[in-house]
């Protein structure tokens, strides 16, 4: 069965979230999924547009949704912050007639409600039957004990992020990791915020939030953290400071790529700040 999605990469997938972009495209290719990048897409505005920009908070992401209309299929969004902004704008376009007309006039496209923003993790955990994924498995992730980390905006607020997993106690990422042969560790910090939006201007606060999460992951018996957001990954990977034993932080698509035996994905592990290769070699998952 062929699947096809509109694709909104977001700004970080070409920079700090480089491994996420490469692994997302590689995994989708391997699973026979087509990603059609939205032509001339723009930044969603992130935290800054809703902090200072007023209407920009919905107007900037709304442009991307209008540009995606002719594609007529769900929009796959790898970044949790982009997903939150596009979902908020989509709701506004559906419910606020004046806003929709204004956006249609500025962008010169019509809104037909045909390109629903969806988190990439939602797509990966909802649209593929387990048997289908299992058929692609080349290397079970035996010995890997990840904690699943969703962060803030993949599931909050539920009225906007939708109900594709439980808001306070999500489980779908754990199930996917089990299917890949890993043994997810249970913890209660899956949806606690890592503070990424302050990482440039208040590194001191962010280091405390990240330190708390990594300690909780250690206490849970985990040997790595899995994320589905480029801001969470960059923040958790880059802000562990001088911890004696820093913990590797993976994108879910990197672990999929590893389990599917995709060399272009495993070749990027050396670009993490906390090098995950010693752990993977110790477990016999990487040569």
């Amino acid at each position: 069965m062929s699947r096809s999605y509109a694709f909104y990469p977001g700004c970080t997938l070409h920079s700090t979230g480089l491994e996420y972009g490469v692994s997302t495209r590689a995994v989708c290719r391997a699973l026979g999924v087509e990603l059609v990048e939205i032509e001339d897409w723009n930044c969603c505005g992130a935290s800054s547009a809703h902090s200072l920009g007023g209407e920009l908070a919905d107007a900037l992401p709304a442009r991307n949704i209008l540009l995606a209309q002719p594609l007529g299929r769900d929009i796959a969004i790898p970044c949790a912050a982009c997903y939150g902004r596009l979902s908020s704008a989509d709701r506004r376009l559906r419910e606020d007639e004046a806003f929709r007309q204004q956006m249609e006039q500025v962008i010169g496209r019509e809104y037909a409600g045909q390109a629903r923003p969806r988190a990439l993790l939602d797509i990966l955990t909802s649209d593929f039957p387990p048997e289908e994924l299992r058929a692609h498995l080349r290397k079970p992730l035996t010995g890997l004990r990840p904690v699943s980390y969703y962060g803030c905006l993949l599931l909050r607020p539920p009225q906007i992020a939708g109900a594709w997993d439980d808001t306070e106690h999500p489980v779908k990422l754990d199930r996917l990791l089990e299917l890949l042969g890993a043994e997810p560790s249970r913890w209660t910090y899956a949806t606690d915020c890592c503070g990424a939006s302050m990482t440039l201007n208040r590194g001191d606060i962010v280091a405390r939030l990240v330190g708390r999460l990594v300690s909780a992951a250690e206490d849970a018996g985990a040997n790595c953290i899995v994320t589905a957001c480029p801001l969470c990954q960059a923040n958790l990977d880059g802000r562990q400071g001088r911890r004696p034993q820093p913990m590797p932080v993976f994108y879910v698509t990197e672990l999929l790529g590893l389990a599917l035996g995709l060399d272009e994905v495993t070749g990027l592990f050396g670009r993490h700040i906390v090098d995950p290769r010693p752990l993977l070699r110790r477990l016999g998952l990487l040569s």
Partner: protein
Amino acid sequence: MSSPIDWRFMDIVAERSGQPIATCYQCRKCTAGCPTAFVMDYDPAQIVHMVQMGERRALLSSQAIWMCVGCETCGTRCPNGICVGRINDALRQMAAEEGVRVGAPAIYQFHRAFLNNLRRFGRVHEITMIVEYKLRSLDLLSNLDLGARLLLARKLPPLPQVIRRRQEIARLFEAAGAHAAETPEGRE
């Protein structure tokens, strides 16, 4: 502490934020779940109460309204459907418009640098955005080690990606009006 009470303040903030502020009965779940309450001069439940009590001046110049990371925990858990994050956004915009001395200048300057960069290219380019942020905030020495490691890992592209129809972005900024514009405070 005595400060002049502005009795219209709650209605204005409720209107701008779209939040039913009057329904708060101080259960404090927002504060219990807030990841940054520990660095705020007023915690989230206090912010809501102060809006109800018309404490305009104290709130607009507070540091707390800038410490919110927009994680949506408060709004998700509030029994009355109040998202303190949206209230903080409204208060930040009022503070910027009214030219009060903002309580967390570095965070304010970061958001300005981010929006300027977005407006210039249509997408955000880290290196030029960070340079503008550092010049605006004079926070010159932070994060140099992390920046160097990201450069070494070739994760900070030297050149921006520029979208083709930037005029549409300019029009969205214009349509957003006063809050999106540079304030006198921001220009100094």
